């Protein structure tokens, strides 16, 4: 009976210990509550039956559900990814459409200044304002790009930190694995509960950073894999990840996995967790945003400069580039670090209208050059000859040196354009508001028009600068017998014009002379002449300024389907949409995560009220067992007293 009482004492003490352990760990993350499993001891056989011999502690069981743990791990990884994705995307999203930091207000202000110039072309202040608005626009491009570059370096830094954290966690898991393997009590023996909890918690923290899969081993160790089955922890050894340089761009961080002596870039295989979120954000949002911003920068600078070059400034000379020629300087082709040939590639934008916001991959293999558009992996060129100009993409490539088979180049036409965007003019008189040519009726020495007929010539426009400024006047003289104009100067020859049928207006173009285009109308008298000459002293002319101002709404980009505003709006919508859906998914995932936590807590969490009840319960049982010993003692005392005399 004493033995039975003692077995009860021992068992309830253990139970009280465990309850105390539960209470102490009520707030320990990842802790699973434990319960002492009691069982009756093997009874003793007596003639009249089995006599109970007390209680024993079978095991201390961990209240744990494998399925719930796996679910929690998966939810944690998904939530971690969306959380970091949303965190970064939200930063960019706010910046792009903000009235103070976004691009749209700067573009509006710039074109406002262009309109002001058009309404007052001789005004130096209007020109100064245009130039300062151009600088403000450049500053805005730089600001946005700098912020994106900051975010990018933030992403790089966080990739490094996260990789280091993953490595720490991996070795901690390996350490716990070792302890678990060495711990006594495998198989049917009681398990090392707290170590198992600790390992689960470490794996959950790992899952916050990257999606993992686990495989349990017979010896109690748990092997951890990431990506496409790359081993991170194998038994008691941890494999470490590293942050490696991108093959095309050394400053760009990728996730490296040691395979033999070299590290392999496994970024594309990483998903889930903070790391997955960072990589997805960088690929889907950050790169796309910088490219799209660069596309607006190149589109705006190239088309505006092209129109500006067709104008004439206050000094009477042809306008040059208004913005610096970033269509020629910004596009970059980056050679892979593993290239063996000595080739370098120079990229320029041949047609800003056709330019896309995508990057391209040029591969040279088996004597064939292949250019792939990375946004949709479409092959845009394939052939034995070096591509040269790819008209469909608005790109022009130039090869220097010879590539070796297997060489690869990453072509980034627009990535750096926003940061290179800059004005090319600082002298207000160099702003070309005027058109370089003008038209008029022939006049006498006093400037008096000398035509007799009703013929009119339109103001005329130019489309290139060939043979401009004109070497001399171009005079068109009408011959009413032959119904034609005789052209003297310029291209010469004759222009057929029949006033009877074409009096409503007929358009002519001198392609080789600035592409001068003008319309003749009405009925000129025989001998009437019109003159096209250089716009000397034409400081009050605003024709080119009007053309420049019109570019704001002209569909110059996307193959003639979108204005600057459209392309930028597309970018804002794209980033906004991605952020929006990341937010929605994040919230949904948060609900799932909360549910997973609740489900796990329902099984494994400590409820202090329950433990309080257990305390009272076991305390009473303990007291009762002690009472049984006391009874056994007094029974023995009674016996002794009976035989003592």
């Amino acid at each position, binding site marked *: 009976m004493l033995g039975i009482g003692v077995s009860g004492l021992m068992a309830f003490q253990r139970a009280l210990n465990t309850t105390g352990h539960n209470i102490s760990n009520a707030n320990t993350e990842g802790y699973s509550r434990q319960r002492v499993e009691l069982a009756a001891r093997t009874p003793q056989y007596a003639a009249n039956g089995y006599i109970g011999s007390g209680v024993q502690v079978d095991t201390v069981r961990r209240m744990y559900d494998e399925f719930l743990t796996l679910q929690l791990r998966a939810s944690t990884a998904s939530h971690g990814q969306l959380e970091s994705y949303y965190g970064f995307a*939200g930063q960019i*999203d706010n910046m*792009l459409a903000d009235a103070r930091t*976004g691009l*749209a207000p700067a*573009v*509006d202000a710039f*074109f*406002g200044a262009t*309109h*002001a110039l*058009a*309404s*007052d*072309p*001789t005004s130096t202040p209007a020109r100064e304002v245009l130039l300062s608005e151009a600088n403000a626009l450049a500053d805005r491009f730089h600001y946005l790009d700098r912020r994106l570059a900051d975010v990018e370096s933030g992403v790089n830094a966080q990739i490094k930190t996260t990789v280091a954290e993953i490595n720490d966690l991996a070795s901690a898991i390996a350490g716990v694995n070792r302890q678990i393997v060495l711990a006594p009590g495998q198989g049917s023996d009681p398990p090392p509960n707290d170590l198992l909890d600790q390992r689960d918690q470490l794996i959950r923290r790992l899952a916050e950073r990257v999606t993992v899969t686990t495989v349990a081993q017979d010896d109690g160790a748990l092997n951890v894999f990431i990506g496409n089955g790359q081993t991170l922890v194998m038994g008691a050894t941890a494999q470490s990840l590293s942050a490696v340089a991108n093959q095309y761009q050394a400053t760009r961080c990728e996730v490296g996995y040691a395979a033999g002596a070299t590290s392999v870039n496994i970024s594309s295989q990483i998903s889930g967790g903070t790391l997955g979120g960072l990589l997805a954000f960088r690929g889907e949002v950050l790169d796309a945003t910088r490219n799209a911003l660069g596309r607006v920068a190149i589109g705006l600078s190239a088309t505006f400069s092209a129109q500006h070059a067709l104008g004439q400034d206050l000094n009477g000379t042809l306008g040059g580039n208004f913005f610096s020629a970033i269509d020629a300087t910004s596009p970059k082709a980056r050679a892979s670090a593993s290239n063996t040939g000595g080739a370098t590639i120079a990229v320029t934008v041949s047609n800003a209208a056709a330019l896309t916001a995508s990057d391209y991959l040029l591969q040279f293999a088996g004597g064939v050059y292949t250019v792939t558009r990375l946004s949709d992996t479409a092959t845009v060129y394939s052939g034995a000859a070096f591509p040269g100009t790819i008209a469909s993409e608005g790109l022009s490539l130039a090869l220097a040196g010879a590539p070796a088979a297997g060489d690869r180049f990453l072509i980034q036409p627009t990535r750096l354009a926003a940061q290179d965007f800059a004005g090319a003019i600082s002298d207000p008189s160099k702003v070309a508001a*005027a058109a370089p040519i*003008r038209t*008029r*009726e022939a006049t006498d*020495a*006093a*400037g*008096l*028009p000398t035509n*007799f007929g009703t013929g009119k010539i339109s*103001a005329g426009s130019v489309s290139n600068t060939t043979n401009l400024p004109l070497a001399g006047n171009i005079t068109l003289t009408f011959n009413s017998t032959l119904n034609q104009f005789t052209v003297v100067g310029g291209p010469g020859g004759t222009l057929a014009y029949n006033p009877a049928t074409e009096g409503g207006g007929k358009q002519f173009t001198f392609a080789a002379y600035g592409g001068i285009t003008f319309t003749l109308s009405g009925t000129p*008298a025989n001998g009437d002449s019109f003159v096209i000459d250089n*716009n*000397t*002293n*034409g*400081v*009050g*002319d*605003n024709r080119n300024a*009007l053309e420049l*101002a*019109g570019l704001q709404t002209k569909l110059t980009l996307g193959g003639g389907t979108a204005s600057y*505003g459209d392309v*930028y*709006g597309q970018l*804002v*919508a794209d*980033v*906004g949409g991605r*952020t*929006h859906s990341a*937010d929605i998914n994040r919230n949904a995932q948060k609900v799932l995560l*909360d549910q997973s*936590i609740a489900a796990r*807590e329902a*099984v494994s*969490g*400590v*409820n*202090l*009220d*329950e433990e309080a009840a257990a*305390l009272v319960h076991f305390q009473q049982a303990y007291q009762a067992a002690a009472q049984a010993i006391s009874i056994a003692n007094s029974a023995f005392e009674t016996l002794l007293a009976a035989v003592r005399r």
Partner: protein
Amino acid sequence: MRISTSQLYQQSANAILDQQAKLAKTQQQVSSGMRITSPADDPVGAVQALDLNAVLAQTKLYQENAGAARDRLRLEEGTLTGVTDLLQRARELAVQGNNAPLSNSDRASLASELRERLNELVGLANTRDANGEYLFSGHQSRTAPFSRNASGAVTYGGDQGGRYLQIGPAVQVVVGDSGSEVFQAIRNGNGTFVTAAGANSGSGVIDPGSVSGTFVSDTYTIAFTQVLPSDPITYSVTGAVSGVVVPAGTAYTSGAAMTFNGVKTGVSGTPANGDTFTVSPSANQSIFTTLQNLINVLGTPAGSPASQANLNNGINRSLKDIDQSLDHILETRARIGARLNALDSQSDMNDAFALQLQETLSKVQDLDYAEAVTRMQQQLTGLQAAQQAFAKVEQLSLFNYL
């Protein structure tokens, strides 16, 4: 379902955090008055707002341009009103000069007033706007359009360009006419042909004439013949290209109509033998030349019948030229008026469009305050409830009773 104690606390805390986040969002909306605080709130709406803002900014620019255009056109209109007044005064002076009783010195004083008027006209033609740009020099707005050359004639130094301003998405308005067009491109005579007297010795005065049918463009010479004073006066009309159109020997009656090749004119008075008159196609003649011609005519002393006829011929022609100029200036002013009208209607359209844009923009991005404040109240209540629930749950523990 079992609830763990830490879960209980965590849940309460999460609920409070959630409510606070929602409240912060609503607060941000209410304090900014914007429904969309970042594009992620409503990507489609955000881009729409971006577009609407851009169009609104453009419309504002069009309105500014319309304002500038209106100023310039009004200035031009004002200047041309001055020119009209001036021409009317010149016409009065010409009519006065045509009146027989005037002495040579009277006409000389008329001529000297006209000289002043001519200077005034050059001044008007060289009007500058508030920016110091010449109104009538075409594209060469820093070059004075009209100046006098060595011989005193007024010459044009500008070009024939016109400035356009954008006042609507697809509407441009001309905000000026070149001096060439306003002051120079004026057909002399009656607009189709011009009659003139040769160096005549008779007292024949030719009528400026009118077009009858279709004028055959040519230079016609009306030649008078009266070999002996007793002979009847006859005439012939010969075109430089057309040849003889009225045969020689046609009897002359003073004041009778002469009609040929679309020309209807007449000569009155007594032309002498060998006197000629010409009818030639109208050419452009500047207002300055018109006035200068009148000054020259008035400044030439008249006494003899021949010089009186010369005076009358000259003044008749000047009157016709002045009328042409007046018509031309009035036409130009009518054109300016039409442009101002178009400008005003486009401006009204812009205003209406801007208002509509504002409304749409407001619908897209502005906050419905009633809804937001109600929502905020709800969220506040929710937050308070969550906090109170936490305070209650926090007190619950079995340990309190042990």
